[in-house]
């Protein structure tokens, strides 16, 4: 965890305060922080533990159990490629290769400029239109051939729009 990353303690406390009265508040709080920051800053964990009256170990254990919660920010745009069975049958391997050719990265990697992360995901519920992928929350189906090119173009376009 780079020490120079700023940490907005007040914002985290506000999220906790907003959700602590829910039944089973820990998961919604972790999701909210993960959404807001793009990852769960380790400095948030003791705050959550304190506010929810849990041990730090408990909160840490929950945080590490779930694949969704990130320890560090991903690239600015995240492409999740479905690598589960239905998509395998339609060539999700080829899609992974296509993205490797386009961005120079494989599953679980981020481009050196931090623009794009490619990750595996296990089923997006789009198995009748495999292979599937999701970029920044938007779903793509039949991602092969020209449609795979289109996904790459969308990713490049989104990355080009960053910081504007």
């Amino acid at each position, binding site marked *: 965890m780079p020490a120079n990353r700023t940490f907005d303690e007040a914002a985290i406390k506000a999220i906790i305060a907003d959700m602590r009265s829910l039944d089973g508040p820990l998961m919604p709080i972790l999701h909210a922080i993960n959404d807001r920051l793009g990852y769960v800053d380790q400095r948030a964990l003791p705050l959550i533990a304190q506010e929810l009256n849990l041990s730090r170990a408990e909160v840490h*254990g*929950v945080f590490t159990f779930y694949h969704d919660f990130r320890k560090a920010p991903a690239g600015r745009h995240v492409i999740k490629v479905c690598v589960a*069975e*239905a998509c395998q*049958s339609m060539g999700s391997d080829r899609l992974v290769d296509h993205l490797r050719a386009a961005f120079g990265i494989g599953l679980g990697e981020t481009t050196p400029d931090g623009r794009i992360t490619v990750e595996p995901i296990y089923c997006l519920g789009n198995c009748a239109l495999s292979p599937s992928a*999701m970029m920044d929350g938007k779903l793509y189906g039949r991602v092969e051939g020209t449609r795979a090119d289109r996904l790459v173009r969308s990713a490049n376009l989104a990355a080009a729009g960053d910081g504007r």
Partner: protein
Amino acid sequence: MSLRLYVPGDASALAMGASDVVLAIKAELARRGIEATIIRNGSRGLFWLEPLVEVETPEGRVGYGPVEPEDVPGLFEAGFLHGGAHAHRVGLVEEIPYLKKQQRLTFARCGIIDPLSLADYEAHGGLAGLRRALTLSGEAIVKEVTDSGLRGRGGAAFPTGIKWETVRKAEAAQKYIVCNADEGDSGTFADRMLMEGDPFVLIEGMAIAGLAVGATKGFVYIRSEYPHAFRQMNRAIDEARAAGLLGADILGSGRTFDMETRLGAGAYICGEETSLLESLEGRRGTIRFKPPLPALKGLFGQPTVINNLISLASVPIILDKGSAFYRDYGMGRSRGTLPFQLGGNIKHGGLIELAFGPTLREVIEEYGGGTHSGRPVRAIQVGGPLGAYWPASLMDVALDYEEFIKHDGMIGHGGIVVFDDTVDMAKQAQFAFEFCAHESCGKCTPCRIGSTRGAETVAKVRRGQDVEANLVLLRDLALTMRDGSLCALGGLTPMPVVSAIDHFPEDFDGGGPINDRPPNIPEPHRLPGSPGLAAE
């Protein structure tokens, strides 16, 4: 009559560009000065036609699909707003055989109504089940569900009514209804479609469950891979609450039921009911020992009904039409209908709701139209990642819980994934172990360690290393995992592995991927006397 158009807001339709089609239609309407209402319906489940645009005509709804934004000006030229002829015209949607031949009970409204309009919902038969339930005792409601023969649609096929009766009889100040919408199985999308296309039917089903067992609070646990469904479900709950369908006085009855959604966080194991409850409570999703049953000590230690989404969403029609109506569909001990989900390498993938009993062949060939690639079907996996891999020679088995078990398979949540003859079954077997290793909750050794060892061992076989000995080792490991795992993740991972070895032994001879070899692939056959691995 004002013009009415339907363009699905279903995630799979969006994945094929439905929202861009809407923008194109709006632009063309504006350019031509035409007024029309565009309704974002759910999907009919004929996914190869998505985006499927429908227009209302005096004869019925006429469909056009698949529509790309570039097609839109041409559609206007063709007079599609009045059902005009066009290359993409598929005729009256309800007359398409794929849809017409189905028995849509649970999915009766999906794709037809505006999913967020309660008025539309009621006009199409919604709320009749809940209204009837409000006149019945909890015991009578449970009896209807028991008599209908409904079995859990999440995988284990446990009779829903029996589970409810246990919760009903339990004494507690607070009871809960939990909907399992974790739908982690590859090849399944029925829960997602219904949340997006007819969310009120789940709300109605959960409210009826609440009345039946005396629970006033419900949770829907939705996997995070389904952001569209999650948003839609939240909107529907808000609507329902505003309309008095949820809250302290449901439909003016003086009875209370309310519900909330919770988001999963990318853990397959959280589809297992006790792991899901742990997660809802804000803990690691590790499996709980049973007993105690969740029915007696479930969410926050209270008696809890936990059911798959399709189980709960099938209850309104059972209450509305009566248990006999539902029970009359199906075969043997598999009563009612199941929304089969056809995916993978298939030409016409989609949702096919049928009474139990059709053969796999009917679904794959008649509905599915064969593979997408046009190559022969080689393998079929039914029941998600823990389901058996079958060769095409087993396609004449009927889709019925018991028939599948007889052939060492399982129907599970009804997902059917088709592979053509380019599939490497040894690779699939390795993946089954890897998936188990990735998703294991870590509580028991056979699952946590065995899955990793299994993946390594299959890899050795694939490299041609000590093939005979390693295959013996694999079968041994499979038995250890089957018998020594606490839950079905570790317990059933052997199913795809052993079925692949049994049915496709030629892929496990160490000679490398079958398709990298010279042609003349041997016919798949089954080794006699292999140890079967039926679902517990």
